[in-house]
């Protein structure tokens, strides 16, 4: 009566095989390594790898593996000292074309990676790093847009020679324009309605004056806010890339929050500065007499011009630009990359606000046939080595990112064509969009964990799991003898399964997550305790051992299910309402409950059946 069919054993063996396979990568640890990412796709990865290897060989630094994955070159080292030294060397040699970051790359063997078996991802509290939660100022996003409308309205009315009293933003987040007579207002109404379809326009008459009231509809407001959060995330991502952080996490949380996690970053002051960097764009005419530039790097620019380095060698090392700025980047409303309908080449579509369009139209009308440059300006704090000392200074980077010929006078919408390839177009659109933050960011939560602390947390958490585990195992073996040993096998298997599932999900393991595992170990034996206690009862009631086993498992089942489902409900609620650390705990607890149901019921029964199921003359059970 206590026999499982063969397929059940095969199923269990299969589950064990999969569990062990996916839990395995966690045993291999990590290699100290250096990752090199090209800045904005400037250099090819194999080229970077070659240069890096040359530099390392030259200095006699031993590395044991290099590899190229999607967007980075990874070089592995034997020791942390070597890793740090190599990172410094590589950043110095490879220069500004790349960002070099320290990384701890999983030392998972290739055959495991080929089946997508990866180790668990350690949370910041275990590996050290910075966690920021930032709040996007949504009201500011809307009020900035209102101000822009106000400016645009003024310019448009002036341009169309419509006389107006004043245009302002009122307390109800509306743009109101006052006119002295109805005809002017009528014209303005028609004009604005045609130009700004997204706005709700109303007319009003009071105190003998004529008002035009523009309000932003709710959906449009939501759109503005969504856009603001998205753009801020894009901007932050770009900036974090500048920081040289391995595996940063930048995610939206809720409607108006952004989470930034920078593993391994200790200097929060620097991180905050970089995140808060301001970047902008300028459009200037190229000095055609000196284009392309043939002078030396330190030649002074001709009078009335400025000299900027070029990001792209296509435009030479330097480009001489006219001193006068045609337009600044704050007029850019949107930028997107696309395909030029005529040539099939990549292009970037740019949309300016109406005020920007006017300025741009005037400026470009006089310059048809000439070249215009897009300059990227960024202010940031930089740390560098000088005479053996670390020096910090504010650095203003000004770079020409694009030079293009003006084909015809440009207005609110124009295209930049003649870009190298689609990825260059995408990058440029991104940069244009991500030049500045769309709305102010406030850091509302910060959690920093030092690296030694992270290491300590791992060791302590691991120790707690091991000791707790060993104590439970000893107790079970002592109290339930052979059956206790069987339960212990299930406990070990349960631990393997939890680790395997966490690895498969690529869930983040945090300290509360370890606590969840520890708690599961304590509670996982509960199912077996229930079963064994029941078997003892049945034996005491005079049932034969075989019957007692059968009846014990059968009767305990509904109790185990009820008890575990209620705990699962609690874990689920924790997950739904909780954030970060609480969720981590809830996830491991839920996984633990589910896997323990399998190991404690099916797993132990399989072993019990295997040992006792065929013994017809079984007279007593070692329980």
């Amino acid at each position, binding site marked *: 009566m206590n026999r499982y069919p063969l397929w059940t054993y095969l199923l269990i063996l299969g589950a064990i095989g999969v569990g062990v396979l996916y839990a395995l990568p966690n045993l291999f640890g990590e290699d100290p390594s250096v990752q090199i990412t090209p800045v904005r796709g400037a250099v090819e990865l194999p080229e970077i790898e070659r240069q890096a290897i040359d530099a390392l060989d030259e200095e006699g630094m031993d590395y044991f593996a290099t590899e190229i994955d999607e967007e980075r070159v990874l070089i592995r080292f034997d020791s942390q000292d070597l890793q740090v030294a190599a990172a410094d060397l590589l950043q110095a040699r490879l220069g500004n074309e790349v960002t070099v970051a320290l990384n701890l790359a999983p030392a998972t063997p290739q055959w495991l990676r080929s089946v997508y078996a990866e180790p668990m991802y350690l949370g910041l509290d275990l590996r050290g790093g910075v966690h920021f*939660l930032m*709040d996007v100022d949504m009201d500011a996003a809307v009020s900035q847009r209102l101000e822009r409308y106000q400016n645009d309205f003024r310019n448009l009315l002036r341009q169309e020679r419509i006389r107006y009293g004043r245009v302002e933003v009122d307390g109800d987040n509306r743009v109101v324009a006052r006119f002295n007579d109805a005809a002017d207002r009528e014209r303005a109404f028609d004009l604005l309605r045609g130009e700004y379809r997204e706005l709700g326009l109303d007319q009003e008459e009071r105190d003998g004056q004529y008002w035009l009231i523009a309000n932003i509809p709710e959906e449009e407001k939501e759109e503005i806010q969504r856009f603001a959060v998205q753009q801020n995330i894009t901007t932050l991502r770009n900036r974090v890339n500048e920081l040289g952080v391995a595996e940063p996490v930048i995610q939206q949380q809720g409607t108006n929050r952004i989470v930034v996690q920078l593993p391994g970053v200790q200097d929060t002051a620097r991180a905050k500065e970089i995140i808060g960097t301001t970047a902008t764009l300028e459009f200037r005419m190229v000095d055609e007499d000196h284009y392309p530039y043939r002078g030396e790097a330190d030649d002074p620019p001709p009078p009335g011009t400025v000299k900027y380095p070029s990001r792209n060698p296509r435009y030479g090392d330097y480009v001489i630009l006219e001193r006068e700025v045609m337009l600044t980047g704050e007029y850019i409303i949107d930028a997107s990359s696309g395909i030029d309908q005529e040539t099939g080449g990549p292009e970037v579509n740019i949309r300016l606000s109406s005020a920007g369009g006017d300025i741009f139209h005037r400026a470009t009308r006089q310059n048809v046939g000439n070249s215009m440059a897009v300059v990227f300006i960024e202010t940031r704090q930089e740390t560098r080595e000088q005479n053996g000392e670390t020096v910090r200074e504010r650095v203003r980077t000004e770079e020409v990112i694009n030079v293009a010929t003006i084909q015809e006078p440009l207005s609110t919408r124009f295209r930049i064509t003649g870009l190298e390839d689609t990825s260059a177009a995408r990058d440029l659109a991104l940069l244009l969009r991500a030049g500045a933050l769309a709305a102010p960011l406030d850091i509302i939560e*910060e959690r920093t964990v030092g690296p030694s602390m992270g290491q300590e947390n791992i060791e302590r958490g691991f120790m707690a799991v091991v000791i707790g585990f060993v104590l439970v195992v000893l107790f079970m073996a002592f109290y339930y003898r052979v059956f206790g040993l069987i339960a212990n096998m299930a406990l070990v298997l349960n631990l393997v399964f939890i680790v395997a599932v966490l690895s498969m999900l690529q869930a983040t393991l945090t300290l509360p997550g370890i606590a969840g595992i520890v708690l599961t170990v304590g509670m996982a034996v509960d199912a077996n305790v229930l079963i064994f*206690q029941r078997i*003892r009862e049945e034996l005491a009631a005079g049932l034969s051992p075989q019957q007692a086993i059968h009846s014990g498992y059968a009767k305990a089942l509904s109790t185990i299910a009820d008890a575990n489902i209620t705990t699962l409900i*609690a874990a689920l609620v924790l997950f739904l309402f909780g954030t970060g650390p609480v969720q981590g705990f809830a996830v491991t607890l839920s996984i633990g409950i589910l896997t323990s149901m399998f190991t404690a019921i099916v797993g132990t029964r399989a072993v019990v059946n295997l040992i006792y199921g065929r013994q017809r003359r079984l007279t007593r059970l070692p329980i």
Partner: protein
Amino acid sequence: MWLFKKTPNLDFMGWRRLAGLVSVILLGLAVGLLVVRGLNFGIDFTGGTVVEVGFPEPVDVAAVRGALDGGGHGDAVAQHFGTAREVMIRLGPREDEDAEALSNQVVETLRDAYPDVELRRVEFVGPQVGEELTEQGALAMLGALGCILLYVAFRFEYRFAAASVAALVHDVVLVLGVLSLLQISFDLSVLAALLAVVGYSLNDTIVVFDRIRENFVRMRKGTTEEVLNTSINQTISRTLVTSFTTLLVVVSLYLLGGEVISGFALTLIIGVLVGTYSSIFVASASALAMGVTKYDLQPPAKEGEEQEAEGEKLRP
């Protein structure tokens, strides 16, 4: 080895008035403590900044406090955290703009006095986040209790559901009382532990109720009280063994897991103890007080069940 040589026959129901009195007194004390002393809410809920620093040598907290005072952080609370080489500095929430720069200033200030100071951990939580968390925490607790109530009502009966929730509220209030008594910092992880206690204590209670349900069908002769008594006696070995194994791991977590996790572990230790007590003495007594009788919970297919129950006893 057996905890009880055979199923014990202890008169738990007879002690229910005494146990009820003890519980009421303890609940009164806990509520009193919560009102008078309150909970020591951590910065997760109040907002503020916590900076944890490590020193190569043991340091005097008073000296650290002095250094902070000199640096313009007079409101900082400094205390040893774990060992004498580690100090935790806590600053209240600030309204001013540069609250986020505060942690950097604190470290700079300390670095002037102690060049070897090592930053171990920084937590800054804005006041708005704190408010949200308090709200979310309360919601999570109510949500969990509500869902559990529904499930138990569905699986058993509404009076069992009410009794199990009564036991849960009893446990949560008592644990909160102990947290208040010991002034343990109530942060997110402690909240998680509290919810785990809810899950755990419920687990215990459900096991007992499950047996009560089974025995209502099987024991036709006994009174309701006798059935409850038998059920508790039959499950007590399991209750104690499971509590013991769970305690083994949470105590090892408390002793070895480090300071960050100690509040969490301590809450669980208290919760497991209280939960074990309540599933033995409070839950069933509450169900009885709610008017549960052995005629409840008898499934419609009563006849078949009876035969099954009697048939089993007849087997050799």
